[in-house]
């Protein structure tokens, strides 16, 4: 075991670093007042997106869901497409922070905080859509088992109510996990803060954390258990989301491959989003020592692997449909390839199936701009996948007399782009006020690295000491 740790941690932190240099590098971003120009530009654009979201919601509340493109037979539309897309993006955060922790993948340390924040904001965006899609969001509490004047209760044999429990639990547990990880770092910020206001705010958030061995002992138990709980949770959440589809009888939805295929797709799109966000931010804040090329390379590999699973899902979907010999199922496949939405389906195959194959090449994985572009393409591809799943099955089912077409309206786009703005804005605020990399875990990583692979310059103790004197 020790030997494995040794090799894995050897160069996860590049350059010469001490506990102090790691701490000040990460903490100074959260506590500093100077931010790179792109931060201001993109935060400004994103805040415009937040306004767009608010306007779209306000207009929806005034006029009802009729402002969207949904109709009979396509009752789900953008609301469900975007819900599934956002919640899938969130899943990479849990995968990185929980599953990779249990698998002792130490490279998760420099990206887990970031990915967890992404989970929380993505789930916020996701939750908004079904809430608004119910038509009368002011009575959305009817979804919860709360005794009310109607005397009616939720129906627990429906996957839609499982979804309510799955998504609220997922949000709550992700928030607890994230906050637990932040407590020791808030203590660091509290102790470094120069201004009274920052001392008070970070002091409240740190809740009196003093890094005692007794604290750490219970903390590590709690953190590991939260990881252990999140792991089956994340699998359950997207499985339940897929059951919203699979439990119905529609062609293309009623298949047993949906749960695993949805979970793989979620991780795939989530890793794409992590790459989309991490690549620019690591450059703006000069975090290359902590989020190294190795990290990007590994994330690209996970993306490639999950992408192949997703593509296998596409092939099996087609095979099962044809093998069933069922008219409606066979027609669905033909409709996807050659029907009115065929351009979207072909685009999906190119975005999710073809282009990511470039990641087999180490040269592509080492090429940061190319990696960034591929991650964007995968994000688009995964959105198209949900569009195809939701729309093609609904618009032409068993009865040709009830066929129809779906066209999103300006308000569909407004709310969708608005949530992208909200998500980006929240991520930028997070980077601005909260340590974007788990500082205490990085110190721990440095300690292991020095312990197991002594640097050529000498023993770790002397290295720390000399830097102290000179610095």
């Amino acid at each position, binding site marked *: 075991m020790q030997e494995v740790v040794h090799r894995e941690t050897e160069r996860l932190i590049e350059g010469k670093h001490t506990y102090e240099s790691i701490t000040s590098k990460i903490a100074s971003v959260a506590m500093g007042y100077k931010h790179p120009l792109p931060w201001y530009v993109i935060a400004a654009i994103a805040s415009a997106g937040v306004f767009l979201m608010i306007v779209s919601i306000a207009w929806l509340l005034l006029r009802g869901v009729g402002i969207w493109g949904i109709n009979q037979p396509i009752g789900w539309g953008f609301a469900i497409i975007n819900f599934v897309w956002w919640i899938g993006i969130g899943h990479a955060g849990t995968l990185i922070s929980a599953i990779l922790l249990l698998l002792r993948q130490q490279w998760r340390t420099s990206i887990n905080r970031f990915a967890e924040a992404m989970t929380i904001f993505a789930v916020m965006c996701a939750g908004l859509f079904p809430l608004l899609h119910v038509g009368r969001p002011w009575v959305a509490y009817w979804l919860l088992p709360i005794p009310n004047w109607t005397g009616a209760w939720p129906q627990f044999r429906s996957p839609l109510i499982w979804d309510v429990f799955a998504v609220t*639990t997922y949000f709550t547990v992700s928030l607890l996990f994230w906050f637990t990880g932040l407590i020791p770092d808030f203590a660091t910020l509290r102790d470094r803060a120069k201004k009274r206001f920052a001392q008070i705010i970070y002091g409240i958030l740190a809740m009196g954390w003093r890094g005692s*061995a007794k604290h750490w002992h219970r903390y590590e138990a709690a953190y590991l258990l939260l990881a252990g709980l999140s792991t089956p949770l994340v699998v359950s959440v997207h499985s339940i989301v897929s059951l919203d589809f699979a439990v119905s009888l529609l062609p293309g939805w009623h298949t047993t491959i949906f749960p695993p295929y949805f979970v793989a797709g979620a991780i795939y799109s989530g890793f794409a989003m992590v790459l989309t966000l991490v690549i620019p931010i690591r450059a703006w804040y000069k975090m290359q020592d902590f989020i190294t090329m190795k990290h990007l390379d590994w994330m690209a590999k996970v993306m490639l692997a999950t992408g192949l699973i997703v593509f296998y899902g596409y092939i099996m979907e087609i095979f099962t449909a044809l093998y069933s010999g069922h008219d409606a199922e066979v027609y669905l496949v033909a409709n996807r390839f050659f029907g009115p939405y065929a351009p979207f389906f072909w685009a999906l195959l190119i975005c999710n199936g073809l282009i990511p194959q470039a990641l087999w090449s180490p040269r592509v994985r080492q090429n940061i701009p190319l990696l960034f572009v591929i991650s964007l393409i995968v994000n688009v591809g995964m959105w198209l996948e949900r569009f195809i799943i939701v729309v093609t099955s609904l618009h032409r089912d068993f009865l040709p007399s009830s066929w129809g077409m779906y066209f999103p309206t300006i308000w569909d786009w407004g709310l969708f782009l608005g949530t992208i703005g909200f998500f980006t804005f929240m991520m930028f605020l997070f980077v601005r006020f909260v340590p974007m990399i788990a500082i205490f875990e990085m110190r721990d990583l440095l300690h292991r690295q020095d312990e197991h692979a002594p640097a050529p310059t000498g023993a770790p103790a002397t290295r720390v000491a000399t830097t102290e004197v000179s610095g």
Partner: protein
Amino acid sequence: MSVPLHGIIAEYETAEELLHAARRAREAGYTRMDAYSPFPVHGLAEAIGFEDHKVPWTVFLSGVVGAIAGFALQYYISVIDYPLNVGGRPIFSWPAYIPVTFETTVLFAAFGAFIGMLAFNGLPQPYHPIFNAPRFERASQDRFFLCIEATDPLFDRTHTRHFLESTGARLVSEVEE
């Protein structure tokens, strides 16, 4: 008349020095002490003679409570208070209750982990005397501390100070209550 003491604290530069000092303090017979570090140091809790399994048990028990509560809620609603015939399926269709039961199990267990960890650690705690120690703000950044508390039966202002100085500490100081 001097201020009552919380203990005597020693500062170290590395986790190894702190571990070594904590082990020596245990060998010297001290029992009431605490070590402070900017990241979890493997073996430190054992070195100061601390072991605690309350958090895992809390998580387990809250998970059990969550499972029972979730299942009971669905049973009460679907079977007792609001039985609804859907396509002639049995009223007590328990396999359909499993997903929600699983979610409430995880939810309760996660709260158990979070609240349990904080509660047993005595957090949130607005004041603790250890923050009076000089340079203690470094404990959350890059330094390692060992504090032998005044309540220790072997505690003696002079002897304990000499003992801590002999463990290779950079700085030894008294912490006021």
